[in-house]
């Protein structure tokens, strides 16, 4: 399972990924699936499920609070967790 941490723009998603990388967490910048992009095009950082809490904590500390945290199940279904 993976978590998609969404941000308001590509710039913020990129910065979030770099903050995570410096903290030793692998995060991949990607576009938010259309089904979850209620406001139109958006970007997210994908992290492994086990890194979710740690990643959100690091990002919050860096002033880069994700707009939403979305769980992506292995079958591709999405679940907004917060």
């Amino acid at each position: 399972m993976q978590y998609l941490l969404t941000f308001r723009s590509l710039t913020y998603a990129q910065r979030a990924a770099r903050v995570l990388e410096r903290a030793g967490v692998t995060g991949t910048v990607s576009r938010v699936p259309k089904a979850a992009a209620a406001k139109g095009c958006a970007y997210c950082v994908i992290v492994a499920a086990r890194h979710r809490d740690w990643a959100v904590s690091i990002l919050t500390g860096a002033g880069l609070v994700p707009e939403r945290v979305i769980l992506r199940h292995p079958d591709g279904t999405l679940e907004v967790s917060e």
Partner: protein
Amino acid sequence: MIYLDSAATSFLKPASVRYAVSEAMRTMSSPGRGGYESAMRAADTVLDCRVALADLFCVRDPAQVVFTSSATHGLNIAIRSLVRPGDRVVISGYEHNAVWRPLHGVGADIAVARAPLFAPDAMVRAFRELLPGAKAAVCTQVSNVFGYILPVERIADLCREQGVPLIVDASQSAGTVGLDFDRLGCAFAAMPGHKGLLGPQGTGVLLCRDEDVTPLFYGGTGSLSRQAAMPEFLPDRLEPGTHNVPGVAGLLAGVKWLERRTCPAVLAHERELLELFSRRLEQEKGLRLFRAADPALQTGVLSVQIDALDCEEAAARLGEKGVAVRAGLHCAPLAHETAGTLEEGTVRFSFSPFNTEREAMAAADAVLELL
């Protein structure tokens, strides 16, 4: 050719800039438009450049670094964000038309703070007298005509005391004279990418204090696509349309070159060349050199008048001798008016980090041949 028109554009650039532009055209598409490799490579380059510029100018958040097509573009955004018709705006007497014309266009009540060349105390006094009641102020950090380093830090202090937002035109200072955006506390700082920052033409940067800005252009940003209004956050709010990715890649290479060489070292080199050039000419009759008594007040830009020659004629003859300079009013009639050179204009010699002592001496000899 001896290129001494770097105040117009840095024709002489590091080889890494040309390579970066070429590589960007070969390997990068457009950021914010897809998640595929070439788009993400472009996005990484754009963010790298934002971060490098934020570091260079002490900007807290790279999102405050907005890419524009020129300093003029950035100044138009800044002025349109702060000034409404009839607003009183204080500007220095050394501003470029990139400031004067947008203010005129918006219908501002323009108050010009005039003070003699290389007299920073007088300039601060002029601002102090005019600032009460102003809605905004604009000050160039360095005069494009005379290389005069204005007391921007002190003017910024005055503006903060009076609650007047300040726009700094860093067109001639970026890459040589330091600018600490956070400490200065100004509302905006605009600069070209193609002068002291050594990037390609068609690049510019606007540093923004906050997100309360008025877009000049509207369009797609790759974010909040279902919303009719422009995003309210930076940099997206001010960056609609496709980015100039090759330009930004080249600008990044220029900034990296500057990081290695350092801005103070570049300024010191340009001042040394100006000193050599001036020393060769200063005893000659029939020449007027606009030099600061205190070298700390001038960059590597020098205006000269030749008594017997029209400035355009002088520049044309220098061009024939292989010396590239700019003559006339340099799009800065206010500066010429303030310095008393509006009617005659001047010939401007502007040095770059790539000019050599030999070139400076050869250019001086070419001037002597005109006498």
